């Protein structure tokens, strides 16, 4: 049985169980993100920055199987637009399933959670269109009314129309959250990913002289999203990320998180840095 078939069956199982639970929780999400290297390009001369705008919604059903175990099933849909590079405009539709096990009673009991997700993305630049499977195993612990920590291990597999977008990686992350009050939350986290990462190279102008490590390139394909002479490729790399987020609660079900994230991706011969600043609005109906 193919992995994708097994996933669809697993998610359908989550859905069948969870849909019987009753009313779903509907959430809406919108964000504006600025990034200084949307091109994920090692050549500093060729790098381009851009803004991304995202609107998404999700519907989540939850059923409590026992005191400690709950099953979750969610469907997601969203639109993302990039006015500078409209090839990045995309529609995303996905489904997620999760099992959550709380190890004890009360808010300070640790929580173990396993998530499976399957998402389809349709880009204007069709070579990027594809599906993504991700699995996350997380352990969260609230230490007191202020502090909470979350550790997670994750796996991601992306299948694109173009082979350049066939890649997979795995990672470990740690996030600490501090609630100053019911209104303000500060969070900071780090993540390391191993496996393939997407790179882009501009082989015109300065790119003709940039010391790319062509021997390490995998699945190269021309990509017109950023203009002529741009190429997409994947490379076996390590990605280190760090982020800080300040979230303001606008009532019991709405928050306004401001997030700064920096990612360093490096291979033996090539590396790039990407910084992202995003402001989001999250509302749970």
């Amino acid at each position, binding site marked *: 049985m193919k992995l994708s078939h097994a996933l669809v069956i697993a998610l359908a199982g989550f859905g069948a169980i969870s849909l019987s639970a009753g009313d779903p929780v509907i959430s809406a999400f919108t964000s504006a993100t600025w990034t200084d290297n949307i091109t994920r390009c090692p050549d500093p001369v060729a790098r381009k920055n851009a803004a991304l705008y995202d609107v998404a919604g999700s519907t989540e059903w939850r059923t409590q199987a026992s005191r400690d175990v709950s099953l979750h099933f969610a469907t997601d849909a969203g639109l993302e637009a990039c006015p500078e590079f409209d090839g990045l405009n995309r529609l995303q539709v996905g489904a997620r399933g999760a099992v959550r096990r709380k190890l004890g009673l009360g808010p300070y009991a640790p929580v173990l959670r396993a998530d499976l997700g399957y998402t389809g993305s349709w880009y204007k630049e069709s070579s990027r269109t594809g599906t993504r499977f991700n699995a996350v195993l997380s352990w969260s612990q609230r230490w007191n009314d*202020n502090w909470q920590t979350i550790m997670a291990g994750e796996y991601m597999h992306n299948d694109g129309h173009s082979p350049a977008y066939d890649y997979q990686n795995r990672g470990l992350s740690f996030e600490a959250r501090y609630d100053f009050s019911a209104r303000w939350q500060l969070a900071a986290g780090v993540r390391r990913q191993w496996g393939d990462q997407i790179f882009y190279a501009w082989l015109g102008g300065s790119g003709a002289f940039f010391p790319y490590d062509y021997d390490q390139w995998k699945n190269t394909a021309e990509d017109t999203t950023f203009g002529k002479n741009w190429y997409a490729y994947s490379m076996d790399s390590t990605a280190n990320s760090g982020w800080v987020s300040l979230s303001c609660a606008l009532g019991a079900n709405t928050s306004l998180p401001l997030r700064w994230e920096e990612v360093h991706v490096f291979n033996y011969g090539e590396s790039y840095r990407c910084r992202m600043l995003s402001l989001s609005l999250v509302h749970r109906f």
Partner: protein
Amino acid sequence: MRQLLLPFIVASLLSTAALAVDTVKVVVRTTLDGKPVADAVVSAVPLDHALPPTAPEAAIEIEQKDQEFRPYVTALQVGATVNFPNHDTVQHHIYSLSKPKRFEIPLYKSGASESVVFDQPGIITIGCNIHDWMLAYIVVLPTPFFAKTDATGAAALPPLPPGRYRLEIWHPRAATPLIQEIVSAPEKAATLEFSVALKPDKRIRRAPSGKATDY
């Protein structure tokens, strides 16, 4: 805290000699800015005579609505029964880990209701094991003379039979209860004002967090 309250308590004690009362209204305000304090439980325990026999209280209700407990603070007399109706569309799992009454009401659905008898005095914190932000307090009192402050910070105790009483004021955000002795005499009424220093409201955040980038 005690130092802050001392002048006020002294002033109040001095006044109790002339203020022998049977109808007591209490007004509670914050020490910091004088704002009214809601949800403070005021109780009076007789010091020199036995408690009068009282009929059992009718069942009290703490509902779950919009994934919160309502009311936030409930005062009741020892032996009272509390019903916990679920008026939400989701399941709840109520528990208390507090010494005076440990209990668990396993998963129950919308429309269902469970009840618990509170047979020991004390402060009981209740939560929901599914929705960690849900929090409420039950103050179980050994006396029928109690009241809870409203939004204006005011609470009126039931008429007190003559005698000496220990007046106690408890609030979830006060470090310690305020305690003062009062004397009750027939056909006297008084309003006693108290100020209390409140700690920050440390409830677990309910609002959703942001989502990660899909880098």
